[in-house]
């Protein structure tokens, strides 16, 4: 029996010895010697797909290559390796990951989430790191740089800015007898042109079908079918119409101004289109629109002659409607208020380091790389946008495919550029505003009433938010 009992003992002893040797061996390889250092791997969550993702992939590859070259020249340097992962709904998944204590090292997000994230302590303060790295804040366009700043700290760095303008279909302008190179400059002119650019298929009493222009208020709805709209206020930037009329949504950090009279004027103008065309007509017309990213896009297929759209639209035009003749111009201002010219929505994609990031210093190296002009120009050229920097190389202008890039950039630098209000309760505010705009466009409520409801509800939400933050600060 003794021999049998000895066998397991022997096996255990051998395993222990083998493990010990293995451990010693791996310890030995860890010692600083002539062996190259293992790469420092960081994960980077980014929202983009398609050509926008490819543009960032090229920049990431450049950075990784630069790091490898550095490591080859200096054997004691461990190169940083960035792994970019495309994540849909990154703004939500990032929060869940941070809450779960397992965030990526670096993430891309939209500038309008910075306030909510910062208020909830989900971000790492980049200010000290930026100062230490010597990044010049004045190199940035003021407006875009401020998007990453909130309550006196810098939480995010803008990398891909955007702005919006009025895009017009030149061929439809010509067909309507309008000068295709003269887009409307005032809201009143826009209304005039829109009427001339609205076309219906009318069924006459004798059964004949004819194409007619204008709003045709005398023809009953059952006998006319909308085939082309001059202008149709859309779902995007529906929160922003007040700004175009000189209004705003937030004054300072603690005062909601949804019921500002200028906002009411803006939404009354929006409601006028529902009145001119008819709520049911618009709904039916809209339900026939195809996907945004397809040749059935309403602007690309000629269903809508004038739209409010962004700097990226050029790429969609090239891809899905290459024959389209189009022009871009600043969105019109109300007549008699030239001080409101050049109003545009100007937000940006930003880079941020989540709280709980395991490699914040390494992640910051990539952020620092993306504050340099060559990297930013490469990224923004690939995404067909302009950069958030004041300085632009001739090469950038020269190789940029968007013929209106200078216009979009000027708009982004305009004093009337607005961005989504910086408040931690923006999600709720946006939902309330969307509902209000829904009611206004359905002519179910007047702008005054709808905005008054939003004002009351959101001011109390903001007050509640402030009380909770105060109690947290006191704890």
């Amino acid at each position, binding site marked *: 029996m003794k021999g049998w009992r000895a066998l397991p003992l022997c096996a255990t002893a051998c395993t222990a010895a083998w493990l010990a040797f293995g451990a010693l061996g791996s310890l030995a390889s860890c010692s600083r010697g002539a062996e190259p250092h293992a790469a420092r791997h960081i994960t980077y969550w980014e929202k983009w797909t398609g050509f926008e993702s490819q543009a960032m992939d090229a920049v990431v590859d450049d950075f990784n290559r630069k790091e490898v070259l550095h490591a080859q020249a200096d054997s004691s340097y461990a190169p940083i390796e960035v792994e970019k992962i495309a994540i849909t709904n990154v703004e939500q998944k990032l929060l869940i990951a941070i809450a779960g204590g397992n965030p990526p090292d670096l993430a891309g997000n939209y500038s309008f989430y910075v306030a909510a994230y910062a208020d909830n302590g989900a971000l790492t303060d980049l200010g000290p790191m930026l100062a230490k790295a010597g990044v010049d804040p004045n190199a940035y366009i003021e407006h875009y740089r401020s998007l990453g700043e909130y309550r006196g700290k810098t939480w995010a760095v803008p990398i891909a800015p955007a702005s919006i303008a009025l895009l017009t279909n030149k061929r439809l302008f010509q067909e309507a007898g309008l000068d295709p190179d003269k887009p409307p400059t005032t809201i009143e002119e826009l209304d005039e042109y829109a009427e001339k650019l609205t076309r219906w298929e009318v069924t006459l009493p004798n059964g004949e079908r004819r194409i007619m222009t204008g709003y045709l208020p005398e023809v009953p709805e059952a006998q006319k079918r909308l085939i082309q709209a001059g202008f149709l206020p859309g779902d995007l930037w529906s929160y922003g119409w007040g700004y175009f009329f000189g209004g705003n949504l937030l004054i300072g950090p603690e005062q909601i101004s949804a019921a500002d009279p200028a906002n009411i004027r803006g939404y009354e103008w929006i409601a006028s289109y529902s009145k001119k065309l008819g709520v049911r007509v618009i709904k039916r017309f809209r*339900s026939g629109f195809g996907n945004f990213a397809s040749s059935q896009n309403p602007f690309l297929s000629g269903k809508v002659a004038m739209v409010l759209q962004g700097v990226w639209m050029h790429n969609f035009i090239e891809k899905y409607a290459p024959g389209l003749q189009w022009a871009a111009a600043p969105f019109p201002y109300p007549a008699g208020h030239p001080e409101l010219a050049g109003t545009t929505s100007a937000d940006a994609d930003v880079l941020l380091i989540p709280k709980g990031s395991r490699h914040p210093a390494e992640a910051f190296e990539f952020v620092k790389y993306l504050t340099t002009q060559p990297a930013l120009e490469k990224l923004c050229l690939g995404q067909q946008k302009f950069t958030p920097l004041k300085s632009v190389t001739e090469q950038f202008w020269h190789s940029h495919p968007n013929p209106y890039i200078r216009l979009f950039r000027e708009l982004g630098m305009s004093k009337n550029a607005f961005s989504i209000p910086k408040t931690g309760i923006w999600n709720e505010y946006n*939902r309330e505003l969307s*509902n209000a705009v829904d009611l206004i466009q359905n002519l179910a409520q007047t702008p005054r009433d709808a905005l008054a409801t939003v004002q009351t509800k959101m001011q109390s939400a903001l007050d509640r938010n402030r009380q*909770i933050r105060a*109690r947290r600060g006191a704890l």
Partner: protein
Amino acid sequence: MKSPRSLASSRRKYGLLFCLPWLIGLSVFLAYPLCAALYYSLCDYSVLLPPVFVGFDNYLDLTKDPLFWQSLYNTAYYAAGSVLLGFVVSLTLALLLNSKVKGLGVYRTIFFLPSLMPVVASSILWLWMYNGQSGIINTGLGTLGITGPAWLADPAWAKPAIVIMAVWGAGNAMVVYLAGLQDIPTALYEAALIDGAGFFQRLFHVTIPLISPVIYFNVVLSLISGFQAFTQAFIMTGGSGAPERSTLFYVLNLYNVGFQDLRMGYASAMAWVLFVIILLVTFGATRLSKRWVTYDR
């Protein structure tokens, strides 16, 4: 030999031991989250920051929140509508499929299949069917000379549209009703026929009383799941409850408040209120069942 007392206690010990995996699962995945949610409902909690105790403020805010009442109304409308429609459709199908026609197995399979479809896939499909301009439903109505409404874009028709969608889930209840119907002894039908009972008299005086336990079971289950409806509204309206918040269901509102606004305390309060409401509804159904459900055997 072990004494009876120690045998009983050793049996108890082994019984508990075998129950242990399930008990651990229950505590960790059900009991703990429930109690935690109850605690968080008394706090302001954003998950990223530690909770701040606020007492019953969340519950008081709920009573003053118009969205709470609107979402409750929308959900009750949907629950009542889908339970009623589901009951009528699945019972009718079960009655039809209880007869001896050729190819019965094929028909039963066909009617059961839609209920197997994942809710997300069927929501997207119905989204296309409900399209105001080119959807199959409006096109079909057009051939009959009726101009269909804009369905999901019309605040008056969006809820009925989602209720109608519930018909696709009728397959499950249909199978259960079929089983119940086949349990009814044919002798009772023959006796009724001899007494001169017509089809509807047989239905209301023989069939329905005898399958009333099955009806009770199906109704309670549909009510519980009806109150928790979320996926259809989320997929078809993008989470906003558009148009004009007519499709803002209770759980959709909870999701927005909890996961978008990060007010988990408030969302937990909403979850507990829903639990109490469903509990009361189920209790009410059980009390009613004592009156009209017959369990004779």
